[in-house]
């Protein structure tokens, strides 16, 4: 078991958002967490990344309890989050944005190995996203939404992540661009990258992942292999209230 979150209870002030949520991720697996707005998806991501501390429950990476580990130490262990809204630093250049993703690597791998891997990954990211390579000295704010998402993914890769957490990567992006993002994710998955992806709309995510679970009002209401969930129209409709025959991504112009 690579990553395991057990019975997570998380909230703000006196409000509970996650009310006992559990998930598990095997090495090399891709897992989707689906849910409507306000269901608790982003809260879950932030808890796994360490920005929120759970009131109850635990998080284990490779069996090691990291529940209390501060957020800034998690990339060092191999958990990288590409946050909702991309979170690109506008005051940094594209290359600086990428390199800052590698901040935690030195501690884990040692200076020499870290340098080598960082250089290697940097070149690979520029290979995957030529736009970034061409404009590596421009500021992060000069990119389009889709390009920023690529940058966010690249930045996460520079942390040499064991688990890649993606929070709604296609939010605000045109459908065609969203598809490109998923292409990249497929490539990574094919290389064995373990991924947890949080999404509101189900279709593309279900095509991509091995397993999926549905979160509603802070609890897990459904979990299954993606292929099984795709077939189960009525279940999906019940939790999303939309006719799965209509794909929102394809109708958007």
């Amino acid at each position, binding site marked *: 078991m690579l990553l395991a979150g057990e019975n997570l209870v998380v909230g*703000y*002030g006196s409000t509970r958002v996650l009310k006992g949520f559990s998930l598990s991720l095997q090495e090399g697996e891709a897992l989707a967490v689906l849910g409507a707005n306000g269901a608790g998806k*982003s809260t879950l991501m*932030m808890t796994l990344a360490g*920005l*929120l*501390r759970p009131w109850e429950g635990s998080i284990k990476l490779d069996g090691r309890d990291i529940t209390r580990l501060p957020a800034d130490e998690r990339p060092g262990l191999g958990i990288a989050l590409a*946050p*909702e*809204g991309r*979170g690109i630093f506008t005051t940094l250049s594209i290359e600086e944005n990428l390199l800052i993703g590698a901040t935690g690597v030195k501690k884990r791998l040692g200076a020499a190995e870290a340098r080598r891997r960082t250089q290697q990954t940097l070149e690979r990211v520029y290979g995957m996203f030529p736009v970034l390579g061409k404009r590596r000295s421009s500021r992060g704010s000069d990119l389009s939404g889709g390009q920023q998402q690529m940058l966010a993914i690249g930045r996460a890769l520079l942390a040499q992540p064991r688990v890649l957490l993606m929070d709604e990567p296609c939010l605000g992006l045109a459908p065609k661009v969203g598809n490109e993002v998923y292409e990249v994710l497929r490539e990574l998955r094919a290389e064995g990258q373990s991924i947890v992806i949080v999404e509101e709309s189900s279709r593309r995510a279900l095509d991509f992942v091995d397993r999926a679970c549905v979160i509603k009002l802070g609890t897990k209401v459904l979990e299954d292999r993606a292929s099984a969930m795709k077939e189960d129209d009525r279940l999906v409709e019940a939790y999303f209230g939309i006719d799965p025959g209509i794909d929102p991504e394809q109708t958007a112009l």
Partner: protein
Amino acid sequence: MFLPVLRRDAAPGAPGFIGAVVGPLLVVAFVTGIAALVYQDATMTEIVLLFGINAIMVVGFQIFAGSTGLVSFGHIAFMAIGAYATAIVSMDPFDKSIVLKDLPKFLFNLHLSVIPSLLIGGGVAAVFALMTGVALMRLSGAAASIATLGLLVITTNVLSQASKFTHGPQSLFGVPQDANFGWVFGTLGVAVLVSGLFKWSRAGLQARANRDDLIAGESVGIASLRARLVPFVLSAFLTGVAGGLYAMLLTAFSPASFAIPLVVVVLTMAIVGGVNSITGAVVGAALVTVLNEAMRRVENGTHVLGVHLSAPTGISAAVLGVALILTLRWRPEGLMSAFELQFDRRKPAAGEPAADATTTAQPETFSKGDSHASQRV
């Protein structure tokens, strides 16, 4: 059966209102009683009276800070204005001929008794607050605080320059020494009464509702401006009166008397006691005064339990500094938090939510941000 109780909100209706106002008055009565006892010691008279005046200052400060969530570094300016205004109208023309001989005729000849003098002191401060508040109350947060600091600097600068009215940077002396126990602590009682009446009045509730809205990040519109202006002017009035009493206690002062050290003392009293509570203002003033007194004795060398303690002069400032830091770290809402001593018909059940219309939410102005809660990316 009316029982004393600590509550954040006021119980509904007239009895609730009265209970809420009477509570802090009783705290004042208690404190005044103790002060009267200490006052019997001839060496302590000035300290007791200064405490009373400081308490009025803190109550005045609290009216503003508690209603608006803004920390004013400039309130001492109102004290200065009150002091000078009161001095000018209360001084005997003979004394004026020595230090204020160039005063305009009608001011020169004014020689008023205590109450009108104090009222004028407060009044002039209030007018000043009204004029400057119209501009200043549009600002928020630390920007507002820095602007109020500017107000203090400007005021002392102008007072130093306007020699005709103030004797310039030199000491203005000859103010009638009319501040006695009765006037000071009577005024304190009135101040607490006014403060209580305001806090639970419509204007007070509106101001606090406005404060809580603004924490949610709205810009300052006309309604907000008005909501903030009322406590600003009211607190300036009380602070001005305190300034007048100060003038009548010390009988001599200069613009330099109203500088940062005084700001720090009042601020510490307010924060230690709790800026959201009138009871807190009085309690904070008392605590800090006791602390200061203790430090003064340590400076002069004293024995505690057989151990000789002594420290170089000025240690009270450092101790205040430490008190500030510790309070903000461990109990940023102050000793009393937002609680007031009140009288209620019955004891409320434990954990009973205050669901009525007079409820005010606990403000987060001084709480340390929590790294586990609401941090959105």
